[in-house]
């Protein structure tokens, strides 16, 4: 999975450039995110507005990121399309992650004091 990322105002902003987050790209995506958390990033705003499809392996990357943070950080996911949002709703992970259709809203959620 190709990503762009930078840190601004203490928030790691990660933008997924691919259309799919699936089994094919999951190991690479997980490795990239794991390395960023190991470097000390704790507030992560993920922009998935390009993503049209997520499978269980793609969700697994998000869950492992959450587990790696172990309650010592926060993840907000922005740019969630309807098709992808349905998956979060079905799996009820919308109760576990903060989900926004607007990418900027995810950043603002983390910026709250």
């Amino acid at each position: 999975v190709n990503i762009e990322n930078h840190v601004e105002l203490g928030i790691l902003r990660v933008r997924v450039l691919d259309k799919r987050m699936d089994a094919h790209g999951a190991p690479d995506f997980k490795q990239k995110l794991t390395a960023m958390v190991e470097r000390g990033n704790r507030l992560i705003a993920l922009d998935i507005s390009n993503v049209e499809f997520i499978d269980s392996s793609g969700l697994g990357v998000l869950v492992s990121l959450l587990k790696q943070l172990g309650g010592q950080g926060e993840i907000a996911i922005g740019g969630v399309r309807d098709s992808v949002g349905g998956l979060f709703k079905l799996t009820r992970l919308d109760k576990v992650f903060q989900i926004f259709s607007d990418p900027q809203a995810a950043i603002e959620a983390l910026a709250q004091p």
Partner: protein
Amino acid sequence: VIDVSGHGVPSAMLTVALSRSLSAETGYTVQSSMHTVAKQIVSPCEVLRNLDREYPFERFSKFFSISYLVLNCQTGHLRFSSAGHPPPFLIRTDGTVRELDAGGTLIGIGTGVDFEEGAADLEKGDRIFLYTDGIPERANAKGELFGIERLREKLTAIPRAGLASLLDGLMVTLDSFATHQPAADDITICALEFTKKLEANERM
């Protein structure tokens, strides 16, 4: 019905372990009581709580979805709970559909959010369909998904086909929808029909 995240051998290994956790002899589904010889059937939400404790994500880097139902074959009383799984359909003989959607999030996430449990009473001829997301997510060449609505239409079609031919027909419909492109995900569907309710005086 269970769907473990990922593909290949690691996911298959977890599925095998799970099948033991859910067997009547070695698993969580039946409990001996201190006071009687009779075994107790554990309620669906309690089974899911046990699974959530036993299979945290950290253990295998996997989570899974499940639909778990307990049916009293004599009375038709059904209890159910799901964890992050597409809700099973309950289809009555008149074609009305109910989605059995009580439950919680995927097993292994460990949010501390509890699993809800639902109940229904089946009558003769009522049908239940459990399936995995591989069916609604089957895509055609244009990337369009088969979806829940097409599945529901197929399963409620009148006149009603027998279960075996209904499912065979569904597989043909799926393949032709996907214009014979290979499925990206595995597919499971399980159908049952409640054939006979015993009157109170006939029950064991």
